[in-house]
């Protein structure tokens, strides 16, 4: 395996040049790198510069300073067609061309290799076929793009990058318009490509679960800088929490999820022999504005148990004890008596 990074940046500063010549800098001094076959998620809040970074790496946009090296050569030093054989790009804006077939779309990926007229030889056609097979859309090749689902269309866009046959694939929010199962399918497809085809995949996302669970490295926008690390390190060093924390959100180190903070919420301690039941009861209280406490000295204590017919909650609140039997919707109906907000 090659130890040189496929892509790396040096003192990179990204942003826009405003009309009038002033620079609007988003983040500066970015040092990140990606090796062969690595899957990298770019994480950060909205407007933090994820897209700008990806576009700068792909040389679709000029950096305000610093350098981007692709295979140890500066990306601005490549000829256009040469760079297009190193980096392929999938942008956020969905392609809506009703009259284009999947095959036609994927075949466009051969543009950097084809001559002026774009004629395809046997080898090109083979590559296009294989790209469609890899992406699992070979059976759709004669369909028009308006006949595809969002997930299938995204696969077609990825097949196009495979036809472009680049070691580096950049994707700007590839899961943005997809439902949960499609999101995971697309990410697993990318994961497989990075593992089996040794592609370096860099994608931006808002999905914390996906980024933490499915990437080798994270590039995390913390506001002032971009930090690189394995997902676990970034979580344990508290950088993840710092990047997203706000007065409204709380990053849970245990689950790797964010939950809403509610100021002044009553604290509740949940205990049970049934772990599943305990977990969902906790969620229920959080959803209703309580703060779940890990100490039994909370404002309110709840003990949950399950019988064959129903669930039983034993609630101790300010000296009174109440027993509730039934389902969660029954609990919901009675929850107002124990309002999560302190008076």
């Amino acid at each position: 395996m090659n130890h040189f990074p496929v892509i790396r940046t040096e003192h990179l500063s990204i942003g826009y040049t405003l009309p009038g010549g002033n620079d609007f800098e988003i983040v500066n001094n970015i040092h990140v790198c990606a090796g062969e076959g690595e899957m990298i998620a770019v994480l950060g809040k909205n407007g933090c510069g994820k897209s700008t970074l990806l576009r700068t790496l792909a040389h679709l946009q000029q950096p305000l300073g610093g350098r981007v090296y692709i295979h140890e050569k500066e990306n601005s030093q490549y000829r256009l067609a040469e760079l297009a054989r190193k980096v392929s790009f999938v942008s956020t804006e969905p392609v809506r061309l009703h009259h284009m077939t999947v095959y036609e779309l994927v075949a466009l990926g051969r543009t950097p290799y084809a001559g002026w007229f774009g004629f395809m030889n046997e080898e090109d056609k083979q590559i296009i076929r294989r790209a469609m097979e890899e992406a699992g859309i070979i059976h759709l090749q004669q369909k028009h793009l308006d006949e595809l689902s969002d997930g299938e269309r995204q696969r077609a866009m990825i097949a196009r990058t495979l036809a472009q046959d680049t070691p580096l694939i950049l994707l700007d929010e590839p899961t943005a318009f997809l439902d949960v199962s499609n999101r995971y399918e697309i990410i697993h497809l990318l994961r497989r490509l990075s593992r089996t085809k040794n592609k370096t995949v860099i994608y931006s996302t808002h999905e914390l679960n996906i980024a933490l669970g499915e990437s080798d490295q994270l590039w995390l926008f913390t506001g002032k800088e971009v930090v690189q690390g394995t997902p676990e390190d970034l979580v344990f060093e508290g950088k993840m929490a710092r990047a997203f924390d706000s007065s409204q959100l709380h990053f849970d180190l245990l689950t790797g999820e964010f939950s809403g903070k509610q100021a002044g919420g009553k604290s509740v301690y949940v205990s049970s022999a049934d772990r599943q039941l305990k977990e969902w009861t906790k969620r229920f209280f959080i959803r209703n504005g309580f703060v779940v406490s890990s100490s039994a000295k909370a404002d309110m204590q709840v003990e949950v148990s399950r019988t064959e017919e129903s669930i039983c909650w034993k609630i101790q609140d300010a000296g009174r004890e109440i027993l509730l039997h039934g389902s969660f919707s029954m609990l919901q109906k009675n929850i107002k008596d124990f309002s999560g907000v302190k008076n």
Partner: protein
Amino acid sequence: MFFLFALFSVLLLILFFVDLCTGSVFIPVKEVISVLSGHKSSVPEWHFIVTDYRLPKAWVALFAGMALSVSGLQMQTLFRNPLAGPYVLGIMSGANLGVALLVMGVSWFIHGEYAGIVGSFSVVAAAWTGAFVVLLLVMMVSLRVNDMMTLLVLGMLFTGASSAVVNMLQYFTHESALKTFVVWTMGSLSGISPDDLYIFIPPIVAGLFLSFMMSQKMNVLLLGDTYARSMGLNIRFIRWMIFISTCLLAGTVTAFCGPIGFIGVVVPHLARMFFRTTNHWILHGACMLLGGMLLLSGDILSRLPGHAVQLPVDAVTALIGIPVMIWIIVKNFRFVSV
């Protein structure tokens, strides 16, 4: 697909021939054939009408139809906008302004005699100059503005400004000069002599050739600038080639025939609906065939048999083209898109 191409080619030939056979003077089909095959007609006037009047006109209809349709296709692809047409860059308004300045400007200085000065060739030159100046302006703007939507809006603003100037001119000008101008703006395929064809056809052939050469690039351009660049295209070069081609096509047609707007917008849609593809190699061919067909039919229907009256060809093409378009949209229930 080959069937459609063959069918349309045959239809185009038939329409071309029908165009030669119809007109205000009745000439038997047999006589038209004999004139075309190089024989003398039994009536000398008929011979003259066919070779010097109807044949040039049919050629103009054919080439203008092809040119406007291909130019419309280019603009729809370049701007990725189904409403774009040959004139979105402001080429027509540039030509308009050129002709208006010539026809009405000259009438201020030379009273009575301007009719001769504004003969066909100087009008052509004025329209061409106007179109070319606009092209240069667009290219200069596109050096600074990278966003195509902004360019579209600027084209619209320029059209507005030049029509304001034209309106002012119309207000202050003599009646007869005004009429010359208004007649020009209605668009006409006649008024081109066989000799004019040598000036009319070469720029159009050049424009069509240039456009054909850009077919593959236009396929990529459809995905948008980001994708086109990420696949290694030199966007600026391609845009300029398309601008030049459109100026050659739309500029020449406008210069000789006046503004004929409708078919440039509609034919690319017809082509996409019939052939169900975004491949510009096919769309170029389809646009040329359908564009030629539509303008020839427009020309045939704009001449009422037995009358010297001729309806404005633009209006007639719109009247036959719009129902066809609506019928196809409703029947196929397809989205109209580029």
